[in-house]
């Protein structure tokens, strides 16, 4: 008995913090989705009105389309590039420390710093990227200033900024693959591409799957970069779901509708989070 009292004594701080800042807000978020809050009078129950307002907002569909597009691009670029980089780095015997240092350096920079830097790099006039393209005699781009390229410009930045952690996790996974597997494949006459396809990918599939799901969950919540670099423009091409949520809550002070949007976002992301936990458990077993 005393043991349990002591144990709960040790747990008490955590229980309070989790209750106030995690468990209670979960319930409150659901309740808020069905309420109208204005801080003057008591909250009022409005049923599905908040959801209706969202569905009537043309930006709602735009935000989801942009977010989905962002996620797809981030998967193709932000997933493929680190994997290929890890495969190449795994082959190299020299300058390993240098490669690790460089690829992880951007991960340490605050996202606000990288966003502001890249905004300057992307400047269509004297920006670094267009300057280099011009020097090489290549066509330049409007980057963030055009509705066609703004979203992909942000994906390029986030890939650069975040690829360090994914690359190094893949690298760690690659190093656990037994060398005999490659030798066996070689005896069967496999070239590099087939060795990657038949040995590397199957042997690292749990890690790949986990990072894939983590990346989906993370990119669907992207906020800082579009908020700082474009504010959602041009032509609403970079309004993400979270940017819309931020507007509802902190620009229009409509916390009810913002909560309804959180609930929808949660339902969508819940699927991926659930899959992630399942995969983690299987990899652990």
């Amino acid at each position, binding site marked *: 008995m005393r043991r349990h009292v002591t144990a709960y004594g040790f*747990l008490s701080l955590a229980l309070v913090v989790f209750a106030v800042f995690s468990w209670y807000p979960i319930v409150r978020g659901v309740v808020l989705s069905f309420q109208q809050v204005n801080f003057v009078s008591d909250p009022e129950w409005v049923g599905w009105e908040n959801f209706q307002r969202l569905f009537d907002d043309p930006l709602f569909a735009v935000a989801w389309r942009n977010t989905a597009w962002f996620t797809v691009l981030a998967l193709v670029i932000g997933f493929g590039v680190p994997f290929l980089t890890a495969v190449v780095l795994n082959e190299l015997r020299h300058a390993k420390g240098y490669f690790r240092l460089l690829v992880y350096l951007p991960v340490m920079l605050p996202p606000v710093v990288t966003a502001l830097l890249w905004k300057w790099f992307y400047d269509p006039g004297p920006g670094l990227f267009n300057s280099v393209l011009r020097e090489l005699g290549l066509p330049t781009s409007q980057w963030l200033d055009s509705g066609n390229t703004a979203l992909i410009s942000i994906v390029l930045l986030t890939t650069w900024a975040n690829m360090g952690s994914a690359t190094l996790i893949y690298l760690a996974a690659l190093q656990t693959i037994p060398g005999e597997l490659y030798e066996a494949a070689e005896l069967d006459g496999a070239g590099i591409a087939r060795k990657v396809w038949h040995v590397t990918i199957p042997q690292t599939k749990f890690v790949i799957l986990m990072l894939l799901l983590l990346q989906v969950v993370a990119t669907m919540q992207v906020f800082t970069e579009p908020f700082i670099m474009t504010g959602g423009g041009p032509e609403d091409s970079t309004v993400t779901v979270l940017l819309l949520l931020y507007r509802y809550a902190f620009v229009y002070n409509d916390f009810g509708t913002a909560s309804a949007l959180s609930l929808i976002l949660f339902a969508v992301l819940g699927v991926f989070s659930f899959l992630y936990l399942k995969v983690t458990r299987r990899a652990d077993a």
Partner: protein
Amino acid sequence: MRTLTRPGGKAYWVVLTATLVLFTVAFLVPLLWVLLGAFKPPAELAQQPPTILPQTWEPGAYADAWNYMDLGKFFLNTIVVAFGAWAVQMAVIVPAAYALSKLKPLFGNVVLGLMLATLMLPATALLVPVYLTLTDLDLLNNPAGIWLPAAANALNVYLLKRFFDQIPEELLEAARIDGAGTWTTLIRIVLPISRPILAVVSIFTVVAAWKDFIWPLLVFPDPAKQTLSVALQRFAPDTPINLLLAGLVLASLPMVALFLAFQRHILAGLTAGSIKG
């Protein structure tokens, strides 16, 4: 270990050289570009084609940026936020993980399950209700508004608990026979053994707090209380570009220094919790 290709061949050196060049261009050049850019006057920064080394050196830009944006104040705010977040988190999760791992309370698994369930939630799903809870508790413009929600970190509780689980029971039993109480055992036996995982959790907590943007943006409407990230984006539109660049470099230096100092821990910590091959 040899893997895809035969080592030492001509192809190896081609790949090595290409990778060296590519990495340097992709990751080092942009940062050097900024570092040098801060020394150029605004007119030179706008010039076409751009200069590589500054034609006119303005070595005062870093000091000017510091004064112009009052960076000292924001550095101090950020240090308070980041290290306070670390201290509060440790005070909350270390005893909790210890209790769940070694004291095995009634319903301990239920408590752990409820904590882990919060990992299912995307952080942003709680943006609005946590913000409203903070306003109810009058924690806006108060660093505690960052520290306390950050301390509800189920992943770190889980990482610590898993590490504590591996500490042999006999060791704690021996301490108990020597007359050590529960606290003494935690501080004298468990914590020293757990230094590696504590280092990892500590570094990641400080780095996450230093890098965060959206929470400080919401919690500190008062400009005087803001962190570096929030202040920089507020200053960005009205600051001469060379001063802004200098400010960005200065804001990044502590994290770069931390990385250089704790590289081994940080890179090991990357794979600590989640990943097994």
